[in-house]
């Protein structure tokens, strides 16, 4: 996108001025974004402080790395210690602490761990290394899952037999529901994740909006998108509406991307999933369908010996639920910093604590 600097600036300023004129209930409002990319972009642009103080933005469990249980990292570590095994992963997982180690440390110990930008690269690694077993750490939400599914299907078509997947994919709407049902977070609206919604469409949020009486706006990731979405939430609040609207309409259609969903559904089926710090949310995760058992790392490798333990004092769970801010955790900034993270919220580039530490201290 070409940058029209002063125009860009003026647009945001004009929108914020408009926001200031919109009526807001006495105690103010709290809007939650549930996408790690939103957390990062809001922090990178310094948007929070540009908003009037009665409009609060909070971060929910939108970082797929942060919500992945510690046992997943421990299993990944166990896999990279297997003979002739190559572990391929998105960069986000590389420094996440497991119970006793992390992938970065394992690589320093000699494990073959390769960081990839796309799951397709892991198929290439498998094809180029027929003597090795290649495992891809499959994490992500609806944005990423279809691409991983497509990779599994392509690999099958290409008869690649040495590529496996350790899956912890999750879905967003269930988590949002659980957050509100749990009653822990007092929320007045949701900024829904733009690219997750490009796949799912906006319809899945309807049930949430109706059940919990919160307006939902699907937002893009440019600062202008976030500010526009906040304005739309405020307008709904003022008008007493609880609808699902799309700010990011240049990409998101109400019906979403059917083709991508179909591909994902060919490979994955809903399953209960453990969300770190929240617990098990029924139907909020995905697992490989039975016909893909041969690529399921959990079934192909023996991971039963993996024992996991949460770090003491870590309050990632409450942070993820939006119940507390990072400074409320005793470890924040002291025992837990980006250089030596204790929990995933600090190490993940989109983690609430990492964003807070880096941009807002």
């Amino acid at each position: 996108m070409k940058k029209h600097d002063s125009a860009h600036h003026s647009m945001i300023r004009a929108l914020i001025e408009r926001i200031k004129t919109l009526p807001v209930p006495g105690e103010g409002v709290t809007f939650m974004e549930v996408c790690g990319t939103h957390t990062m972009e809001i922090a990178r642009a310094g948007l929070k402080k540009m908003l009037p103080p009665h409009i609060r933005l909070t971060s929910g469990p939108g970082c797929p790395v942060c919500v992945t249980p510690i046992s997943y990292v421990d299993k990944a570590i166990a896999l990279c210690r297997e003979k002739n095994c190559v572990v391929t992963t998105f960069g986000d997982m590389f420094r996440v602490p497991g119970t006793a180690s992390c992938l970065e440390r394992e690589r320093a110990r000699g494990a073959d761990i390769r960081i990839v930008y796309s799951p397709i690269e892991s198929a290439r690694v498998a094809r180029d290394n027929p003597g090795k077993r290649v495992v891809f750490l499959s994490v992500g939400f609806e944005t990423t899952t279809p691409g991983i599914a497509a990779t599994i299907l392509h690999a099958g078509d290409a008869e690649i037999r040495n590529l496996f997947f350790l899956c912890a994919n999750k879905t967003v709407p269930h988590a949002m529901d659980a957050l509100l049902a749990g009653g822990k977070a007092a929320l007045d609206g949701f900024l829904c994740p733009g690219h997750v919604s490009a796949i799912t469409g906006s319809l899945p949020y309807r049930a949430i909006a109706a059940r919990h009486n919160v307006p939902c706006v699907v937002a893009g990731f440019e600062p202008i998108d976030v500010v526009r979405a906040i304005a739309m939430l405020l307008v709904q609040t003022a008008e007493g509406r609880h609808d699902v609207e799309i700010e990011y309409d240049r990409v998101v259609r109400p019906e979403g991307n059917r083709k991508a969903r179909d591909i994902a559904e060919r490979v994955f089926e809903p399953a209960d999933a453990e969300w770190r710090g929240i617990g098990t949310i029924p139907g909020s995760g995905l697992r490989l369908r039975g016909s893909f058992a041969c690529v399921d790392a959990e079934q192909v490798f023996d991971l039963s010996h993996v024992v996991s333990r949460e770090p003491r004092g870590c309050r990632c769970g409450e942070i993820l639920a939006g119940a507390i801010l990072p400074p409320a955790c005793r470890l924040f900034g002291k025992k837990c910093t980006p250089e030596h993270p204790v929990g995933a919220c600090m190490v993940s580039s989109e983690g609430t604590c990492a964003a807070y530490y880096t941009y807002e201290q």
Partner: protein
Amino acid sequence: MDTILLSHGSGGRRTHELIKKIFVRHFANPVIKQLNDAALLAMPAGRIAFTTDAFVIQPLFFPGGDIGKLAVCGTVNDLAVSGAIPRYLAAAFIIEEGLPVETLEKIVRSMAAAGRAAGIPVVAGDTKVVEKGACDKLFITTTGIGVVPQGLRLGIDRIRAGDAVIVTGTIGDHGIAALSARKQLSFSTRLRSDCAPLNRLLQKALAAEPGIRFMRDPTRGGVAMVLNEIVEDRSFGIVIEEDALPVSVGVREASQILGFDPLHIANEGKAVLIVKRREAQTVLRALKQELLGTDAAVVGEVTSRPEGKVIMRTSAGGERIVDMPVGEQLPRIC
């Protein structure tokens, strides 16, 4: 001889041949031709600037340069930002057996060219060959020596609130160029590394304004690293303007795709200068007269508050802290 063997490092005939045919031939200066145990040099009077650096980059070749050019420029630049006029370089090579001689020769030729561009000869060197696996193809260590003119005083302790922060050109070019050379990523860009010797550019800046407070070259860790190093434990801070940062389109776009921050990406041909505010335009003019300084810009200023921090005024109109990067930037998609 087409491959480097262990015997090339054993000090015997093969070593001697290698040194003459590759190193002496390309570095080609009267000092190295003597093949003494130590180079005997004439040094003008003044304070001596002395630096050493090691280079282990993979891949060895990338758009805009190679490990050899990097070694020369990196060392020259360490001297140049100290205000020194670089005089001599020495280079030690640790070669993994099996490296094609052609590869080594290409790199040495490139080093010689970089040395000539900077006006600095490589006058001494050493060669060792290690077993396969004991090093990754080629490691180069360089040492550089130069002279700082009398009266020149550069230092962080000279910096004051109100000073201007200047960057000599576009940031992040090297890191992205090096990344694009690693085949796995399947993204391509015409971006080339900015690897270049800065001695002549910075000498011009100092000639225009000898009162420059401080200079440093932002290599790994990017501009963010240097700015944070400057303010750490000090009674001043730095504020920069995101819209003022010179960033090439390729770097901006690659950063968007991979989730990188241009402020954290490596450079190999740029310097950060801190100058008195009223001298900023003079320095800027001097920089922009040179090719390497074409995109030089004032990007911010030193402030009395907040102490010890680097803040950026964002394009969106907000503010955020610019921190030191934790480790290497990793392509993230989540």
